[in-house]
């Protein structure tokens, strides 16, 4: 094997990817060729250096979020004390109930309406990011944000800061969605903005179980409680948004 042939195989030699016969040829050539030796040493030095770069530890939050996210997919219960849990429903039964309830609601007119509102919600969310106008009242203090809505809405939205759980309140603003005035609360998770729209609901019935809609790269959670419709929208991943939704529901 000539020098140029060895040179072309030197990396495969280093990587242990040569056939036995080629390997022997390279090893025969090496002691007689300082240039090829130097190349090999060079590559070895680089390999040792890069190989010594230590791996970063996996954050505990990632492990936990994956686990919770997977349970979310299977419909296993992530919450410790929810209504279905008290009633003694298993995760599977609960999922079944949600499917039946959802199917029943779907056959009526609710879905088209929900779909239309969810589009409005996403548009409002995007608009708030585009014009850099996420908040009219900028405060991380829930006691500042809540009173700001007084007199502007015919209901009083719950305002809580979840900074300790990694969802920091940024402020609030007013929006006009589905032909009514809505409060929009703005939270931040790392670089992701979360908008929470709260408005009066047409549906008198309680629908504590939430619906997840994924569209255009945004995740939207919707539920109704105490006559108020909640819409949570963000480009944040489903698992963390789910965590946030649970914080809101439990507050």
């Amino acid at each position, binding site marked *: 094997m000539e020098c140029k042939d060895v*040179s*072309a*195989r*030197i*990396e*495969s030699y280093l*990587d242990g*990817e040569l056939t036995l016969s080629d390997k022997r040829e390279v090893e025969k050539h090496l002691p007689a060729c300082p240039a090829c030796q*130097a*190349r090999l*040493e*060079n*590559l*070895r*030095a*680089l*390999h*040792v*250096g*890069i*190989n*010594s*770069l*230590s*791996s*970063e*530890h*996996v*954050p505990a*939050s*990632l*492990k936990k*979020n*994956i*686990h919770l*996210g*997977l*349970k979310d*997919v*299977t*419909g*296993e219960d992530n919450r410790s004390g929810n209504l279905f849990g008290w009633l003694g429903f298993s*995760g*599977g039964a609960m*999922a079944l109930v949600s499917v039946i309830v959802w199917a029943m609601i779907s056959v009526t007119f609710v879905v088209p309406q929900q779909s239309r509102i969810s589009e409005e919600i996403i548009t409002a969310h995007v608009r708030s990011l585009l014009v850099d106008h996420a908040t009219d009242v900028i405060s991380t203090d829930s006691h500042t944000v809540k009173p700001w809505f007084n007199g502007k809405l015919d209901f009083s939205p719950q305002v809580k800061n979840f900074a300790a759980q990694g969802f920091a309140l940024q402020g609030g603003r007013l929006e006009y969605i589905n032909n009514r005035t809505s409060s929009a609360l703005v939270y931040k998770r*790392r*670089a992701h903005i979360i908008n929470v729209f709260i408005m009066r609901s047409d549906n008198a019935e309680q629908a504590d179980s939430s619906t997840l809609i994924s569209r255009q790269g945004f995740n939207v959670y919707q539920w109704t409680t105490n006559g108020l419709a909640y819409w949570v929208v963000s480009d944040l*991943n*489903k*698992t*963390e948004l789910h965590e946030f939704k649970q914080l809101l529901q439990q507050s």
Partner: protein
Amino acid sequence: MLSKKDRQRFERLTMPHLSQAYNLARWLVKDPAEAEDIVQTAYMKAFEAFHHFTGNNTTAWMMTIVRNTAYNWLSKQKRNSNLISFDEILHGAEHEQEPGQYAININPEQVLHIAASKTQLAQLMARLPTEFREVLFLREIEGYSYQEITDITQVPKGTVMSRLSRARQQMQKLCLEQQKREQANGM
């Protein structure tokens, strides 16, 4: 519908690869928080496709999903920005060449000198184009074979080999430049 049993089996098979998956994502997107998001999204995607997974190489399967998710994120970032990344400047047009064509004459000690400082070496590696960082991570850090890298990256073996060769050459060049800078600064 995926069941609790599916979830448990999925976790048993894939969670041991979480560290590799997370580190691959970190090298690709160079942002720890985004890497977390990407890995989580990739695990969810993998779980949704779990019924279709019939192979026995869970590692390669998981790593492929993670890298594809990371590349999607990177291309989205690129679309959202009008800037030409440094990657592309350094990258230029990637063409198929025989490995071994990139030999450059530098002293092993020069490489060793830089390689001795892990922080510096990591910084230099972070400056390489994405595909080069990827192939170096898979080969030099994780020790995957050419065939396994081919499976993960879904590019032909020849491309894997030429990428690896070019990546090593770029790293050597960067090490050399770094050492020259240090010498000029009298360090």
